[in-house]
């Protein structure tokens, strides 16, 4: 595969790729020069140039549609094609957010239906679909916790507890919402250290952010105790629902004592990751928080769907009503699978992860030697000690076997972490190929460590100079001075 020129290098002055009507009227006042822009240096290409350029670029990507993509914490499951066909139906793709409600009853019905489905699945009482992604869902939930305490006249609570295993968005969210983030050390078994938790709780604690199952892929056995402690201290329980794929259909986050949570539609409900987005991060909460939700939410009034603003809403976190295109896909998915299908999703996600665990734990270090949920965390520390090959080397070598590496070096508390989330849409045959590759790589690390250090070998580019990229950032093309 050869280097693809930049689109700017394909430009030819005067070439056009658009087909638009001519300007055939002169109704508007001529614009004064002070309003007008100078030169606009966009590329000038024809449709064939553009199609080829982006088609060739697309082929340089690895993707779910081309192979196994076991990125831990990302739930890279298959994105059903039927969702894409539904999302582009004109009645969904070409409606304006401000249309009169009577002209968008179908759209409101989808949102109302999805709110209810998520309420049921989460074991919560209310849902807002507004947040654009998981991190924005967290932000929303934490602001709701703040608003809740404020509304009760409880103005002292300025701390959010976050386990040290948490995803980066959790501490970043606490800070963005204006809280002090207090980190909570995990126990040796990967669980929350109850003693440390008790020591941290006080009337300054607004709440705790917990991921269920945790980012270690483990179900917290003391979860009911934890929520009891937190609630007793006057705090609220925030659930990071990024890992809902482990629970869906069998276990409801709400039943575990959580007061508010977000759900990543782009994970559990398989809206495509899109190379980094868009996502959708609806927030679900118990009744005590329902009136703080960002608005509007959709309610049903007789046979009519209508928007309603929660009475003590924290306000908007985003324009309009959320990432509706993702709502449509998630609604389609849940309607397709039903409860039985969703149960199967979480079961197979768990079986697949445990199968990998069982088949690799003799070769890779298993930091938490217990049953896992939908993902398994391994560590390359034994291999590093024995061979000098790092987890990064292992990851790059996986590429040579035609697969995408797992998430690496996260969670931070596991040295040389390999975080493997196969998802339920992968077959045993695919897992066996992965297991086989991982075992061979462990052997190669011993036999020929250089093979790993220099990996990947089959890609268009070899390892890239990231340090140089950050030291002297080249973030845009510039026309060479002529």
């Amino acid at each position, binding site marked *: 595969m050869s*280097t693809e020129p930049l689109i700017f290098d394909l430009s030819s002055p005067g*070439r*056009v*790729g658009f087909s*638009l*009507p001519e*300007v055939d009227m002169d109704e508007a006042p001529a614009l004064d020069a*002070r309003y007008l*822009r100078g030169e*606009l240096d*966009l590329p*000038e*290409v024809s449709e064939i140039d553009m199609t080829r*350029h*982006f088609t060739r670029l697309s082929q*340089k*990507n*690895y*993707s779910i*549609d081309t192979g196994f993509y076991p990125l831990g914490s990302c739930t890279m499951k298959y994105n059903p094609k039927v969702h894409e066909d539904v999302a582009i139906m004109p*009645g969904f793709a*070409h409606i304006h957010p*401000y*249309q*009169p409600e009577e*002209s*968008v009853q*179908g*759209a409101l019905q989808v949102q109302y239906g999805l709110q209810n489905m998520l309420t*049921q699945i989460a074991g919560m009482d209310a849902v807002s679909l507004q947040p*654009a*992604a998981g*991190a924005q869902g*967290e932000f929303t939930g934490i602001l709701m916790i703040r608003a809740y305490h404020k509304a009760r006249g409880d103005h002292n609570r300025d701390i959010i507890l976050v386990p040290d295993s948490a995803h*980066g*968005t959790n501490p970043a969210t606490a*800070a963005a919402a204006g809280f002090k*983030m207090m980190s909570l050390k995990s126990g040796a078994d990967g669980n929350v250290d109850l003693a440390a938790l008790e020591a941290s709780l006080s009337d300054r604690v607004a709440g705790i952010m917990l991921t269920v199952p945790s980012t270690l892929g483990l179900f917290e056995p003391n979860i009911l105790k934890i929520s009891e402690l937190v609630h007793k201290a006057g705090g609220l329980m925030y659930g990071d629902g990024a890992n809902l794929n482990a629970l869906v259909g069998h276990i*409801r986050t709400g*039943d575990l004592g959580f007061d508010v949570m977000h759900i990543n539609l782009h994970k559990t409900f398989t809206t495509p*990751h*899109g*190379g980094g*987005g*868009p996502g959708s991060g609806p927030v679900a909460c118990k009744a005590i928080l329902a009136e703080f939700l960002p608005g509007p939410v959709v309610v049903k009034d007789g046979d009519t769907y209508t928007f309603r603003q929660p009475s003590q809403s*924290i306000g908007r976190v*985003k324009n309009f009503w959320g990432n509706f295109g*993702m709502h449509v896909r998630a609604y389609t998915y*849940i309607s397709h699978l*039903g409860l*039985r299908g969703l149960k199967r*999703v979480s079961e197979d996600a768990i079986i697949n992860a445990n199968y990998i665990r069982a088949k690799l734990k003799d070769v890779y270090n298993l930091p938490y030697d217990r*049953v896992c949920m939908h993902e398994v965390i391994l560590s390359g520390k034994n291999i590093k000690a024995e061979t000098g090959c790092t987890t990064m080397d292992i*990851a790059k070598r996986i590429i040579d076997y035609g697969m995408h590496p797992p998430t690496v070096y996260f969670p931070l508390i596991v040295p040389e972490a390999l975080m493997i989330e196969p998802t339920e849409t*992968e077959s045993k045959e695919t897992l066996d190929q992965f297991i086989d590759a991982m075992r061979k790589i462990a052997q190669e690390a011993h036999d020929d460590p250089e093979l790993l250090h220099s990996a990947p070998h089959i890609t268009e580019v*070899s*390892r*890239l100079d990231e340090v140089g990229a*950050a030291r002297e950032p080249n*973030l845009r093309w510039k026309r060479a001075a002529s």
Partner: protein
Amino acid sequence: MVYTPNTEAQRQEMLAAIGVGSINDLYNDVPAAVIDPQIDLPAPLSEPELMAHMRQLAERNSDALHYANFLGAGSYNHYSPSAVYRIMSRSEFYTAYTPYQPELSQGTLQQIYEFQTLICELTGMDVANASMYDAGSALGEAAVMACSITKRNKVWVSPRLHPEHKAVLKTFTNGHGIEFIEHDAHFSESEQLPADVACVIIQLPNFIGEIRDFTGLAERVHEAGAILIEVYDPISLGLLKSPGELDVDIAIGEGQGLGIPMSFGGPYCGLFATKEKYVRQMPGRLAGMTKDKDGKRGFVLTLQTREQHIRREKATSNICTNEALMAVAATAYLTCMGPQGLKRVAELSYQNTHFLSNRIAKLPGYKILSREPFFKEFAVQTPIAPSELNRRLLAHGIIGGLDISGFPEVDGAPNAWLLCCTELTTKEQMTKLVSVLAEA
């Protein structure tokens, strides 16, 4: 089951390999009481039933392919060429994750680099990131960034900023003790800025479509040690002065018009660009050009020490997932349009809008509220409540304008209506609208 490939036999084989007798053993850590509660979901539909059901729902909506649409206000019915969707729907783009393994992601990374460049060219700014959720939240981040750069906490907002932007701004600044000041004038030339303002936020064209002259504003803002933030409409930049030409510090745009369908409000694409000197305070992902071990050109995500997955609570933002695929659409759209095409879209929108405003202005009882020049939207005072006009228009296959009666953005004018035209608005549609109004 359709998306779970393992057969029952394989499940049993795997459970045996795991060393458990049944799947229940994998739930040992879970309190028994919380397993398998009642969950009420609709009965599953097969794919053909599902398609029929979804089509029925879709067709309960009055879409812009079948109805004339005069709504704007941040979401616009611009034309997206077929080629743009065909590129977005390449599954190597839409089923990939964030390009954390650059060797497997050169397609997305190069596209982001091109996107960043296109946004820089369009806005006249130095650097742009790989996208934010939308204009509103990007603006929220910009205000927080300005406060952190200036170490001040007063945000001055132009009165004709989109009301939803104002709302999002308030939420974003909620926890930071930031004071949110709606400035009541239009930053007139003579006006002095107080020394404690963190940033000034303007929108161009503003909420009611007006194109104001902000020449000299940046100088005064900078003199006061503050940051100038502009919210722009990328389509307008086919014609109008760019943020860079106004010496703006942070330029925020809503990318929806760039080939992204209106889709009832999302997903859209927040455009975030700033000056070189602020790059390390900037939120969001950045792709950079670099070299591989063999000296071959390649791209990586860079300056990640700004981001949550590295810096956690000290990150410039909590954003993780962004709107990558929408940025693919915008990249393809801007490529397809080029300078001439974007200018044409802007001109057609500008002319159509005036075709309509010129005719409405002549109707008895109607008064154009937006001051000329306005771009593709204008506010108009109506003799009948806009909601009533919209009701009548709908019966004629027309989605009327936005009812902004009493909005502060029109100084509380009663019966105020915001109408929008794009290059897709036809003379027939406009003539029909005018004739319905004339009869009303």
